[in-house]
């Protein structure tokens, strides 16, 4: 087990190196940062000089090497756009993104899994069909459109709707930013204020919608398969209660793919958070990264990609470890194949 983790950690270093290599090879194609850093009257010579000063004329391998040397010393450079250390900027933004992703993931799991089980058990039920259809409509609209529609309904039209109805049907919700935050050490949290919690609603729903649909459909599809297996039939034959069969045996067996996907989705929630953060002006890493792409803020892009690479490495490591916990067959197999304990 420990050897496995150590080996994976070593591999992770290679992953990070590869991420950095690819990242630097593509920065050339994102655009030219210098034009965003100077005013229009800055002369060509001054622009060229700045470009040279930033080392943008060097081959990307050289730029990457320079980045690595500094990065291992904990120095990720200075943001071109903010003119502040990148590490400081990202540390400031991480809480916002993680809190949003956490709420969205929780929503997706706690709604998606039960709905998946329900639709799996009651395959042809009217409610099941409705769940499936509605959830699909939710994912077939682009995130930006869903976000804007939510803003339109809960920010712009809510007053008019309620006035027309004579009672409050649609509450007015914050449509941008995090509301008031409380500082706990270096972590800023929106969980402790009313405005902070309200501000979480629209973005987290937008972000969760897609993951929820995916998880629900996946659980359903796995449930359907498992319920038909001999193993479940035997369990029923043994006279176990429906509840014990459905949740004790069936659900447990659906968990391998669900864990894989959910684990991946945790990663991709952060990736999907890009658009959601942009639409709701959520001051997280995603917004920072999108702005960095627009402004070609290379130090921020590089650090962000390395960090996200690190996230994925860790998440996938945890997912693989969870496999062992959930599915004993894998454990036995892996021990034989890997030859370690």
């Amino acid at each position, binding site marked *: 087990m420990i050897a496995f983790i150590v080996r994976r950690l070593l591999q992770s270093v290679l992953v990070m190196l590869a991420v950095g290599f690819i990242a630097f090879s593509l920065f050339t194609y994102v655009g030219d940062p*210098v034009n965003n*850093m100077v005013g229009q009257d800055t002369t060509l010579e001054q622009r060229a000089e700045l470009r040279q000063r930033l080392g943008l004329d060097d081959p990307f391998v050289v730029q990457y090497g320079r980045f690595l040397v500094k990065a291992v010393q904990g120095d990720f450079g200075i943001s*071109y756009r903010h*003119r*502040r250390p990148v590490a400081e900027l990202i540390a400031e933004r991480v809480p916002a993104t993680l809190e949003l992703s956490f709420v969205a993931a929780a929503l997706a799991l706690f709604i998606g899994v039960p709905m998946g089980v329900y639709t799996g058990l009651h395959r042809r039920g009217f409610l099941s069909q409705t769940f499936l259809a509605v959830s699909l409509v939710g994912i077939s609209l682009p995130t930006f459109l869903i976000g804007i529609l939510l803003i339109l309904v809960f920010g712009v039209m*809510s007053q008019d709707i309620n006035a027309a109805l004579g009672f409050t049907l649609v509450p007015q919700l914050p449509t*941008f930013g995090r509301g008031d935050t409380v500082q706990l050490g270096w972590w800023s949290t929106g969980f402790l204020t009313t405005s902070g919690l309200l501000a979480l609603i629209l973005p987290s729903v937008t972000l969760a919608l897609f993951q929820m649909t995916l998880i629900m459909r996946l659980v359903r599809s796995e449930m359907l398969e498992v319920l038909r297996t001999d193993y479940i039939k035997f369990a029923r034959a043994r006279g176990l209660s429906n509840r014990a069969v459905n949740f004790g045996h069936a659900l447990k067996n659906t968990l391998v793919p669900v864990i894989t996907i959910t684990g991946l989705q945790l990663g991709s929630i952060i990736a999907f958070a890009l658009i959601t953060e942009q639409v709701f002006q959520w001051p997280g890493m995603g917004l920072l990264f999108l702005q960095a792409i627009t402004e070609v803020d290379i130090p921020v892009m590089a650090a962000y990609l390395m960090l996200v690479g690190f996230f994925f490495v860790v998440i996938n490591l945890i997912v693989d470890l969870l496999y062992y916990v959930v599915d004993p067959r894998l454990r036995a197999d892996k021990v034989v194949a890997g030859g370690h304990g």
Partner: protein
Amino acid sequence: MMKNRAGRLRRGFFAVAAAAGILAGGLGAEAKTFKWAFQGDIQTLDPHGLFETFTLGFQLNFYEGLVSRTPDLQLQPGLATSWENVEPTVWRFTLRQGVTFHNGNSFNADDVIFSVQRINSEGSDMKVIATLIKEAVKVDDYTVDLVTDQPNPILPLQLEIFMIMDKEWSEEHGTTGATNVKGDDQGNYANLNANGTGPFMIKERQPDVRTVLVPNPNWWGDAQSNVTEAVFTPIGQDATRVAALISGDVDMAYPVPVQDWKRLEDADGVSPLTGAEARTIFLGFDQDRDELLYSSVKGKNPFKDQRVRQAFYQAIDIEAIKDRIMRGAATPSNLMIAPQINGFNPALNARLPYDVDKAKALLAEAGYPDGFTVTMDCPNDRYVNDERICQAVASMLARIGVKIDLLAQTKSKYFAKVLAQNGYDTSFYLLGWTPSTFDAHNVIDSIMSCRVDGKGSFNLGGYCNKRVTELSDLIQVETDQEKRQALIDEANRIHADEVGHIPLHQQPLSWGVSDKVSVAQRADDMFHLRHVTVK
């Protein structure tokens, strides 16, 4: 609430003198909070860090220049009470007495001289101003001479955005050089902290999240604003920004998309505030290469033929663009400069008529009766409805047989492709320009002159007429306003006759304002808190 506020003030965030807080608290009964949103945040608090309209306009709330401008852009005294051209190359500024910086230090000639040195420092993006000033000489504590290399009749016009910093404060905090993008120093103090003389002071700053300003109780000027606290939030997405305005979360938001004006008019309590911006949008051709990089025409360059350029010009229905894309709010133009710009002459601003038949005939005469194919470069997040203008132009040109392959990209990719460092990699493009000096010379020099001796750096197509280039030099040093205007007119006339570029229009300013506040709109899109009143 107290907890939140206390929590928010932390390392990296800025809290100005405690006096400000006490003042805001003391006026609690009459608290007038003003909240506004823009599409981005300022990049730095350092007034010499970035030459960019929004950043400079924002900084002018807490820093000031020697001169300032009224909302209709007339020059007025700022930190200098008067100025005169004592010799052709010497401008003498008499400084205002009794002015203090926000930290209480007093303002005098040393601060001006220090600031001139600072805009010459390595990280400065104000070198454009720095190159105008050869030397700053202290005459006495409240008189400074700015010496120029050659006569410069318009120097004061260029100085509003040259903001004065406190020498003692800067030295104390080790920020004698402008915030350097190449971060060898880990964060310049002036990047996140400010100490100006302006009517407002920074109370709190969280970059990209919010910035809070409070009035400067000791400002020398006549405070017209009744704002006791101003909260700025950047909101990147147009729809989110407009929604925040309509829902009352902010009192003012800009820019708002022109197509949303009707929504603002219909909604209760908000309305659009529009005006003519001084930015001219135009099309340019590669007239330099012998063969276009992106075209079906091989072996020659159709844009070297004036008839082709004129055909393009006359094929464009500018009124349709104005009506449909700009909601009637653009100002069609035949000049490369706007009416607000010094040197504008209305007599030269009549456009060639929109005439498809004439355009076809010109094209046939030039040897392209069936048209040709050319790629057009266009930004899609830089100017008002830029991509839509390009699409409209493409469909108008299709009617005279010219097939446009449209390559619309984000500004970072667009500029990286078409500007000098990439060898002007374009055949046909759309660009916009506001002369930062508000004087025609800037445009004639940067866009209309041949690409020689540092001129024509934004003449992406390489339009070249020796006389225009010569005129640019003459205009620069001509101090007689009447003669100068004649020279500007001559350059503009030649350029228009040869269809060096196709000017389209000046784009509109587009702000959304709550009925609860009144603000002043400047034609350069700068927004100043000193003109805000909350009802």
